């Protein structure tokens, strides 16, 4: 493993190139823990970041994990994922409780979480 370098190296130009000049995702469709799954193999001529996402997401991978793996800010990853989703090259499994900040999830899900935690 090479030591992790900070993403913010004072070179925002590179990030703009990666996203084709966009700095914000169109919407908040990708939560931090939305699980992303590749639906195809990378093809020739594909943008290198797209290739890396497709390779990373052969198994379900959360948006934060994609960002950490690619050493890119989450904002940038969201934009890239939005492109791939629009092209049908990935699918997204969204969290159940997304959106509402203060809503408590149903007791059945929490029971499942408790059971899982007791078994770790």
């Amino acid at each position, binding site marked *: *493993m090479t030591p*992790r370098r*900070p*993403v*913010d190296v004072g070179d*925002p130009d590179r*990030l703009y190139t990666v996203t084709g000049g966009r*700095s*914000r995702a169109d919407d908040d469709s990708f*939560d*931090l*823990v*939305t*699980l992303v799954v590749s639906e195809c193999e990378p093809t020739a001529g594909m943008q290198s970041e797209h290739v890396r996402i497709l390779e990373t997401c*052969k*198994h*379900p*991978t*959360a948006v*934060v*994990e994609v*960002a*950490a*793996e690619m050493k890119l*800010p*989450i*904002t*940038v990853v969201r934009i890239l994922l939005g492109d791939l989703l629009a092209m049908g090259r990935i699918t997204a*499994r969204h*969290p*159940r*409780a*997304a*959106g*509402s*900040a*203060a809503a*408590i*999830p*149903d*007791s059945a*899900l*929490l*029971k*499942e*979480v*408790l*059971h*899982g*935690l*007791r078994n*770790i």
Partner: protein
Amino acid sequence: MGSATSELPSRMPLSDTAETGLKIVVVGGFGVGKTTLVRSVSEIRPLNTEEVMTQAGIGVDETSDVAAKTTTTVAFDFGRISLNERVVLYLFGAPGQERFWFLWDRLFSGTLGAVVLVDTRRMDDSWYAIDRLEHHKTPFVVAVNRFDDASPHSLDEIRQALALPDHVPLIDCDARVRSSGKDVLITLVDHLYALAMAQEMTP
């Protein structure tokens, strides 16, 4: 029981049947042991990622539209626990300082709940986090990291010092120890479960 010092894989694919990601946030001051706690219960070595916050919404409460467009980079750690073949829990270690409030507001919406990790030598660091969580009505528990803690303060004294309401669970922990970290998470989810049951009983 594994200890926090055992080697964890940095990359371990989830099961293909994984479909639901859940979030729990661990907040606390600098050096209180957030990453240690995350590491002690995580199935992967904690990863680090960054969010670049651009202007939108930062400080809108207290500033007018003169506020210039600013960019802030915030780094945070996270770990992962596969709870079963479908549900995966992500744990985020977030800085508790005041200047990071927008990180919580934006990044952690939809979180199950929070753990406030407290160091008795620097309890001041916890007030802001607790205030913010109460404001957002995010359920939370407070865990006192007793590692290297020679202080004689009892939990009752700490509850008083933090002005913590009785309904908020307060426990001791050693963030380095897996079983202890696990107990902290179970305490939080037990608390959430009680809240959910109370809510479901109310017509």
